[in-house]
C-alpha cells in the first residue's frame, strides 16, 4: 500500500474523531439557571416512528402552548437499544441535561442503567413491564402498566360472565407482559392461546380456531387490527375482542371504522372526547392537519410534567414526586415508586364511534 493512501486514511479518521471531539468537546454552559434541559430519546425512524412522531407532536404542541422554560434536545433512537444509548450519551456529555425522556422498553431499560450512572431521572412512556420502576429511584413512568391493562380487561370479562376466553397476543415484550397478567386475573378458562409475530398479517386460521370462545383477549398493533377485523368480516365471524388502545387507534378507525363492532378496549381516558381532550384535539388538528393518535396525549402531558418540575424549583427527582395536576390522561402524579397510575377506562367501538362502558 502506498504511503499517500495511509496518510489519506489517517486524515479521514482524524477528521471524524476530531469532529466528534470538537462537537462534544466542551460541555455547554447551562443555557439558563432556571431552564430545564431535557434529553428526549424517541423513535423518529424505524417501525415505531409513527408513535414516536405522534408523541413528539404532543410534546411540542404543549410546549408551544405553555411556552415553558424548557429546552428539548430531541434525538432519534430508531427503536434500538444501542442507538438510544449513543444518543443519550451524546446529550449527557454535551449538554447540562436535567431529565431524560424516553419511549419503549427496548430503549428505556438500557437507558435506566445510564440514568443511574449520571443520577438523572428517566421519565418513560410506552413502557408497560411492571417491574420497570422497581429497579431504580430514577425511574418514572407516565404510562399504564401491563398489570393495569390486563387486570381491567380480565375483570371486565369476569363481570360479563365469560367462561371460555381465548388469548391472542403479539409475540413481543408488551404482548407477553399483558398475557401473563390477564391469565392471573381471569376467573374462567382459557380455551386457546396463541401468539403471533409482528410481521404477521394473515389471521384467518387462528380466527377459525378461536371462534368457539365467548370472547378473545387480544393485543396487537394498528396493522394487526386492520387485518384482524377485515378477515373476521371475510369469514363471517362475530368474535368479541377485548383489547387496548391500539385496537381503536386513529389509524385503525380511519381504515376500518365500519367493521369495528364487538370490540371492547381498555384505554387511557384521553382516548374519549371530553371538554379537555376536545380542546387538545382541535389544537392538534389546527397545527398538524390530522387527528392525534393515542400517544400524542402522553407527549402533551409529558411537557406539563416537565413544566411542573421546572416551576417546582427543587431537584428534578424530588420535584417529580411532588407534582400533581389534571392532564389529558387524568390526574398526573408519581407515587414513591415513580408510577403515575394513569387511570384507565373501558370503551366499546360501535357503529363508527366509541362510547364509554365503565370507568
Amino acid at each position, binding site marked *: 500500500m502506498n504511503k499517500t493512501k495511509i496518510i489519506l486514511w489517517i486524515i479521514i479518521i482524524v477528521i471524524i474523531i476530531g469532529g466528534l471531539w470538537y*462537537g*462534544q*468537546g466542551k460541555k455547554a454552559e447551562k443555557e439558563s439557571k432556571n431552564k430545564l434541559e431535557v434529553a428526549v430519546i424517541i*423513535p423518529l425512524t424505524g417501525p415505531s416512528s409513527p408513535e414516536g412522531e405522534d408523541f413528539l407532536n404532543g410534546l411540542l404542541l404543549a410546549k408551544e402552548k405553555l411556552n415553558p422554560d424548557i429546552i428539548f434536545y430531541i434525538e432519534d433512537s430508531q427503536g434500538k*437499544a444501542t442507538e438510544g444509548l*449513543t444518543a443519550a450519551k451524546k446529550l449527557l456529555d454535551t449538554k447540562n441535561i436535567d431529565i431524560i425522556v424516553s419511549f419503549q422498553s*427496548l430503549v428505556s431499560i438500557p437507558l435506566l442503567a445510564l440514568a443511574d450512572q449520571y443520577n438523572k431521572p428517566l421519565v418513560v412512556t410506552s413502557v408497560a413491564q411492571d417491574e420497570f420502576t422497581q429497579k431504580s429511584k430514577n425511574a418514572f413512568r407516565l404510562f399504564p402498566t401491563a398489570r393495569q391493562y390486563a387486570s381491567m380487561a380480565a375483570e371486565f370479562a369476569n363481570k360479563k360472565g365469560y367462561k371460555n376466553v381465548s388469548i391472542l397476543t403479539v*409475540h413481543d*415484550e408488551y404482548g407477553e407482559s399483558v398475557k401473563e397478567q390477564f391469565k392471573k386475573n381471569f376467573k374462567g378458562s382459557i380455551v386457546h392461546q396463541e401468539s403471533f409475530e409482528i410481521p404477521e398479517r394473515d389471521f384467518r386460521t387462528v380466527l377459525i380456531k378461536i371462534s368457539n370462545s365467548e370472547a378473545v383477549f387480544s393485543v396487537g398493533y394498528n396493522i394487526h387490527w386492520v387485518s384482524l377485523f377485515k378477515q373476521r368480516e371475510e369469514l363471517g365471524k362475530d368474535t368479541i375482542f377485548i383489547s387496548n388502545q391500539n385496537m381503536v387507534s386513529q389509524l385503525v378507525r380511519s381504515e376500518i371504522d365500519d367493521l369495528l363492532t364487538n370490540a371492547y378496549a381498555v384505554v387511557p381516558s384521553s382516548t374519549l372526547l371530553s371538554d379537555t381532550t376536545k380542546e387538545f384535539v382541535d389544537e392538534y388538528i389546527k397545527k398538524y392537519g390530522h387527528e392525534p393518535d393515542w400517544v400524542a396525549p402522553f407527549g402533551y402531558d409529558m411537557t406539563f410534567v416537565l413544566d411542573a418540575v421546572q416551576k417546582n424549583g427543587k431537584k428534578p427527582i424530588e420535584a417529580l414526586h411532588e407534582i400533581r395536576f389534571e392532564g389529558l390522561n387524568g390526574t398526573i402524579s408519581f407515587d414513591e415508586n415513580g408510577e403515575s397510575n394513569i387511570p384507565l377506562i373501558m370503551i366499546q367501538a360501535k357503529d363508527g364511534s366509541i362510547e364509554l362502558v365503565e370507568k
Partner: protein
Amino acid sequence: MFSAYLIHLLILVGIYLILAISLQLAVGFTGLLNLGHIAFYAIGAYISALLALAGWPWWICLLLAGTGAMLSGFLLALPTNKLKGDYLALATLGFTFVIYAITLNWTSLTRGPLGLPGIPKPSLFGFVFSDNFAFLILTAIITTISYFIIKRIVSSPFGKVLEAIRDDELATRVLGKNTFKMKTYALGISAFFAGIAGSLYAHYITFIDPSSFTLLQLIPVIAIVIIGGLASLRGTVIAAIILVLLPEPLRFIGFPSSVVGPARQIIYALLLLLILIYKPKGFYGKVELE
C-alpha cells in the same frame, strides 16, 4: 480525558471490529458467504448473560460464550459444508432464523421477548469494569488480541489453505487437503470470536432481547466487511472505525427535530454509496465477492 460519549463510541467500534474481522475470516479468507454470523453473536450474548446472571465469574462467561458459539459453528458446518455461494448464504440465513426463534420462544430460559435485564458488568480478580473507561480498556485488549490471533491465522499455512479453498476448492482437494475439515475449523473460529463480541455487547448494554440479534443487525457488519475489502484485515479495521463513527458527526449538524432521524439516515446512506462507487472492491479488497 475522553468523554463518556466518545468512550461509548470507541467501545462500539471495538465490538463491531471483533464481529467484522471474524466474519472476514469466513467470508473474505475462506469464501464462505455466512449470513449466520449474527446468530453466533446472539449465542455468545445469551450464554454469557445467562451464566453471569446465574453468578458465574465473568471470564468464564466470556470463554464459554466463545466456546458455545464455536460449537454452534462446527454444528452449522456439518450440514452446510458442501454448499457454496447463494445456497450457503441461504442455509446460514436459516440458522439465524432458528436461533432467533429459539431466543424468542424458549421463554423459560431466555424470557423470550421480555429480554434479560440487569446483566452485570464484567469483573476480574475483584475489579469491576463498571466505569466505561475501564470497559473501553477491556474491549481494546480483547479486540487487539482477537485481531492478532486472526491475523496470525490468516498468515499461517492454515490461512493460506483457506485462501486456496476460497479461490479453487477442487484444486485444493486435489492437492490432498481436507477442505471439509478446514472449512469447519474456519467457521468454528469465526463463530468463536462472534461469541466473544456477543458477550462484550451483553455485559456492556446490560440488557439483551431477541430483537438485538435480527438480520438487520448483520447489515452493518457485512457493510464493514465489504467496504473494508474482502480478505483485508487492515481494510476491515478502517471500515469499522469509519462506519461506526461516520453517522455521529451528523448528530451535531442541528437538523429540525422532525427531519433529524430520516436526514441522518439519508446522508449516511449517500456517503456509503459514494464510497462504493469510488471503491467498488472496498478500501483494500483483494478478491471480489462471488
